[in-house]
């Protein structure tokens, strides 16, 4: 026996999922909004802490202003660093609403702030204490490193953070391998751990203020706990519980393979169509990397399928996987699902290997969804999984358009798209594929007046 992609018309199942599959967990936007309010509250609280740390007399004393700025930058910088850690801790409730790509975008946007603020913190505090002690700046640096409790390790932590900041500058990052850069920036966990102690030992908001000490410690412990639980713990537990292994590797098209995996208890894995996993194939050369690949079909216990195009080292190695290879997974992640849909109907646009997310999304749609699907490819054989998509579109009572040809032959612009899809204003747009393609379509949708909340995209970058 083997895996057969079951594309059923769902006439007998109606709107309900087959009983073998679990109900996926709905994203709850209210939770994300509450999270936003909490994040803002923390920022406001930390700023107020800094402002109330010094009295008027202390501010007017020598070094008072610099020490105040040092407190402010230190508190806000550390808080933002904790927020950044929380953003990538893959808390399921948040991830379901914002999506892994949305969280990463915010993580990257925030990134320069904590590092800059904390560097400024070190500078201001040193200047302030030097002025208060009426000592020279360099002498004060020496004093602080040698005599103040926990400042030396905190400075080591700051050095690590500064190093990560430097390595992440575009000019330098471009020269590094992605895995190297990523391993370096993981040291941020260590840097934060090293700098924890000196805050409670020396910070004027904390010395002698038990409530503030407790709240700060609980915040740190909570963040660490969430990271351990959701970033590391949950994926390990899931991988062990479901025991995925490669069953078969099938050719789907030029450079494109489907990997069919078997697993136990797949009926307990809550997957929504369009979601992806980070896949860690446990072979000698690939075990230390986890790459994101979308499921190209809803799970059919005991089978899971992913379809991968060879564009880099890792994806090329996927084609050479041997049956029986064990797989560890992190996920399911992604907000590119039917739950993101706001308008009654959908337009699905995919280019190349982007069809994988689209194919799962289609399978997850209700019977009379009537989607319009645009498949874009340079040659006909580039439209992988075409038969499955065509069948699904037919069963969902939709329309499929194959747009095959080069970029000069096939033009998608403000005139051709409305002609293909006259009722564009009643449809959410889901677009998936290479980054340049996704950007083009998203911009096109904006120019055509489609509001940003109705456009959902998943870009596959190298």
């Amino acid at each position, binding site marked *: 026996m083997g895996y057969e992609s079951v594309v059923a018309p769902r006439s007998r199942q109606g709107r309900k999922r087959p009983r073998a599959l679990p109900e996926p967990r709905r994203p709850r936007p209210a939770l994300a909004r509450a999270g936003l309010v909490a994040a803002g509250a923390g920022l406001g*609280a930390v700023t107020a802490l800094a402002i109330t740390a010094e009295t008027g007399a202390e501010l007017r004393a020598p070094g008072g202003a610099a020490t105040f700025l040092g407190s402010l930058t230190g508190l806000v910088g550390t808080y933002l660093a904790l927020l950044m850690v929380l953003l990538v801790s893959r808390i399921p409730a948040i991830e379901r609403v914002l999506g892994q790509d949305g969280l990463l975008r915010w993580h990257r946007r925030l990134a320069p702030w904590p590092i800059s603020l904390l560097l400024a913190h070190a500078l201001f505090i040193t200047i302030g204490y030097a002025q208060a002690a009426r000592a020279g700046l360099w002498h004060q640096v020496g004093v602080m490193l040698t005599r103040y409790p926990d400042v030396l390790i905190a400075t080591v932590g700051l050095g690590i953070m500064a190093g990560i900041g430097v390595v992440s500058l575009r000019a330098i990052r471009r020269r590094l391998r992605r895995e190297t850069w990523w391993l370096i920036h993981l040291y941020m966990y260590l840097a934060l751990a090293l700098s924890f102690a000196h805050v409670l030992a020396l910070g004027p908001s904390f010395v002698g203020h038990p409530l503030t000490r407790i709240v700060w410690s609980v915040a740190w412990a909570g963040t660490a706990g969430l990271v351990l639980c959701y970033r590391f713990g949950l994926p390990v537990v899931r991988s062990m519980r479901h025991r995925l292994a490669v069953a078969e590797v099938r050719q789907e098209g030029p450079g494109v393979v489907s990997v069919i995996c078997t697993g136990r208890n797949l009926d307990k894995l809550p997957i929504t169509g369009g979601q992806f996993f980070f896949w860690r194939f446990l072979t000698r050369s690939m075990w230390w990397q986890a790459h994101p690949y979308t499921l190209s079909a809803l799970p059919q216990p005991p089978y899971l399928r992913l379809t991968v195009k060879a564009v880099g080292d890792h994806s090329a190695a996927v084609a050479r996987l041997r049956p029986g290879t064990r797989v560890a997974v992190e996920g399911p992640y992604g907000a590119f699902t039917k739950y993101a849909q706001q308008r009654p109907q959908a337009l699905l646009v995919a280019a190349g290997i982007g069809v994988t997310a689209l194919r799962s999304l289609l399978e997850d749609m209700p019977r009379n969804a009537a989607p319009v699907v645009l498949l874009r490819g340079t040659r006909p054989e580039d439209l992988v999984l075409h038969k499955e998509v065509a069948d699904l579109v037919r069963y969902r009572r939709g329309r499929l358009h194959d747009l095959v040809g080069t970029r000069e032959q096939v033009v998608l612009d403000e005139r051709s798209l409305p002609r293909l899809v006259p009722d564009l204003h009643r449809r959410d747009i889901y677009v998936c594929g290479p980054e340049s393609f996704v950007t083009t379509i998203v911009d096109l949708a904006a120019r055509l007046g489609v509001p940003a909340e109705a456009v959902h995209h998943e870009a596959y970058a190298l």
Partner: protein
Amino acid sequence: MRRAGWYLITGAVAGFAGVLGLHIGGTAAPAALGQPVRGETGTPPALAGGSAPGTTPPATPAGATGPARSAAGAVEPYGYGQLSVTVTVRGDRIVAVSVPVLRTVDPYSQQLAQQVIPMLRSEVLAAHSAQIHGVSGATYTSEAYAQSIQSALDKLHSR
């Protein structure tokens, strides 16, 4: 997310106001400092004139009657060390103050504390309470001193 900014700002205002409110409520406690009395340079005028503090034997203030009772205040940590103050009370007047415990993290703080503690002692004896103004340039030391005195006074009142 739409209107993400509004949620963040609402939260920020709430958090800010909350901490500010808690802080203002908290500082209605003893050892309220913050009124600048000395000059900005930190040179205490008390040293300029008058007798050398710390060497004058305390004259018994008027109204101090009854047995002398002493209590040691809590060891108060502050950014640069820890200190504790022992208070002797006769009746309801503070008659003597001494510092049995003084540990600082660096020599400058030690020097500063030794300069400042006699001035603080005079302030406490003059005010007959822990409500002192403190010494500019040694605010953390002054706060710790005042808090330790207050805890000693609390112990005496509760006896």
